[in-house]
């Protein structure tokens, strides 16, 4: 680490921050641009895009769809994550490392491959394009986030508390409910929030599965910028940017999410 930071360090840092943030800035400016949204700088300003945004039913349907998929997939991922972590950390299983890697797999396998696999898989049941196929696919992709956090939490947890509970007459399930779950809850919630956001954001896999009546939000946004160009999307993006910043600040304040960001 640099103990005494040079001027150059700050120059590079400012440049990096600008480089990262400038697209957001341009999007916000584009959302109030009167003419072509791909033209920068804009020649006139208008709130037309914001007005259209709240009347665009198609878009809001996609938001609702993605929200429902996100919530359901997250609930599934939390169930998978906690049970997987219990097995990996507390279970007496052979080859625990292999099992843990298996549950981390969706983070490692390229998403395009995952998408094709799910398409082939669900086609055999004629289930591609259904909302449940997308939910299942998402829960597989996002479960590593919960599994990882739940594993870390269980590894640090004080085994003596479990022993104390058992000595006091608690069976496994009573102990699990009254001791382990409450101690895991804060980190599992932050893992679940992260999972939910990944699901809301998922494009690569979903695009293989989505059909006319299951166009999720990221796919809709992509359509608005390529196939069926619609400047409403710049207003939508600006709103997401704003919400994301608020969300990040709240999450960091409440859950200290930076602790889980190093993977």
């Amino acid at each position: 680490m640099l103990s005494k930071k040079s001027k150059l360090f700050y120059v590079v840092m400012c440049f990096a921050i600008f480089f990262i943030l400038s697209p957001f800035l341009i999007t916000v400016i584009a959302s109030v641009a009167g003419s072509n949204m791909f033209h920068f700088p804009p020649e006139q300003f208008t709130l037309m895009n914001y007005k259209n945004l709240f009347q665009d039913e198609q878009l809001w349907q996609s938001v609702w769809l993605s929200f429902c998929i996100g919530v359901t997939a997250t609930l599934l991922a939390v169930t998978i994550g906690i049970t997987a972590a219990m097995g990996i950390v507390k279970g007496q299983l052979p080859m625990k490392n292999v099992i843990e890697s298996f549950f981390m797999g969706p983070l490692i396998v390229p998403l395009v491959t995952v998408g094709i696999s799910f398409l082939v898989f669900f086609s055999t049941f004629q289930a591609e394009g259904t909302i449940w196929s997308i939910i299942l696919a998402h829960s597989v992709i996002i479960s590593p986030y919960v599994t990882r956090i739940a594993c870390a939490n269980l590894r640090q947890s004080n085994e003596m508390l479990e022993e104390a509970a058992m000595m006091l007459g608690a069976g496994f399930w009573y102990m699990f409910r009254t001791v382990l779950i409450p101690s895991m809850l804060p980190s599992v919630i932050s893992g679940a929030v992260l999972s939910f956001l990944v699901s809301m954001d998922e494009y690569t896999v979903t695009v293989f599965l989505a059909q006319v009546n299951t166009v999720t939000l990221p796919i809709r946004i992509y359509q608005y910028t390529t196939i069926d160009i619609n400047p409403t999307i710049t207003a939508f993006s600006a709103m997401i940017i704003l919400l994301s910043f608020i969300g990040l600040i709240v999450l960091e304040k409440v859950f200290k999410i930076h602790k889980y960001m190093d993977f």
Partner: protein
Amino acid sequence: MDRSDIQMSSTISLKGVKKLFERHAVIEDLNLQLKDGEFLSLLGPSGAGKTTILRMIAGLEYPDGGEIRIKSRDVSTVPPNKRNLGMVFQQYALFPHMTVWENVAYGLKARKLKKEMIKEKANKYLALTGLSELASRKPRELSGGQQQRVSLARALAIEPLVMLFDEPLSNLDARLKDQMLQEIHQLHQKLKFTAVYVTHDQNEALFLSDKIAVLNGGKIEQFDRPEMILSQPATAFVADFFGYTNTFASAILKDEHMVSISGVELPVGYTTETPGSSGIVKMRENGVNIVGNEEASGLEPSKAEKSIEAYVIEARYLGSETKLLLRLDQEGEHSFSVKIPQIIRPLPEIHSKINLLINADYVTFYLEE
């Protein structure tokens, strides 16, 4: 009383208990019997296997051989939640997300007792341990001593068959330790529970116990009442653990009351060996006085005392005592240290010769190990 009678009347009975760790036996053929209401301490240095024995009684580990009976029921492979034992942990092990009251009520709730019953018992044991005022606090708001008292109340509340203690005081400072020691003793007097207490501190063991099992390398060196262990330590290891810190090697037992070390004769208070055998002598640091100093120190010279000559290597004050480092003869290697329970003025000069009164009660003889 024959063997089976002893078996019947004991609350805890360990028979031929064995425990392996990575195929290596850490406990082998361990036998122990404890009667109802007795307080047993398992005493030994770290690695002596005392915690392993406690955990096997608790059910947190299962023996690899032999059997463990509690109230004549074979519990060798019964899980801990089905044994009805109370345990106090070294690191308290309180549930951090529950209040003091919820911690104490935990075992009662797990037993699905009626609400009024839970309330009554939790409040009773909170009162007994002086915690009623703190019932709604969280563990992190309490001091170490208070936390350990919650842990004690929580274990007592389930009214267990046996109370198990795993070095409960080793995280407390000296003053609190004394206070908790008193409290545990008083609770035992009042409630008459059967207890197994693991410690490496002989003072705790002596203060609390009806019986002490001194452990070394997974084996019981001596299992007896505190006064017997103090006056008749069975092995050199036990003697060393209970303050017989001086060791004289290559000693020869002349008769039951006399031992010779390089020609110097010492009185012996306790030995089980036959005259003529050679071995080691263990001697306490105290129980020694300088000839001519008896009156001043208030110690009555007794028949068991014998006067010997010794040479001063070093003499220092230690609190209200005088500590002397001595040797038996001028050039010999038999050095030893003694504490005279008085401030001697002036300090004996280095290399000078002094006459010492040795009390036989503080000298023991063992065969070479």
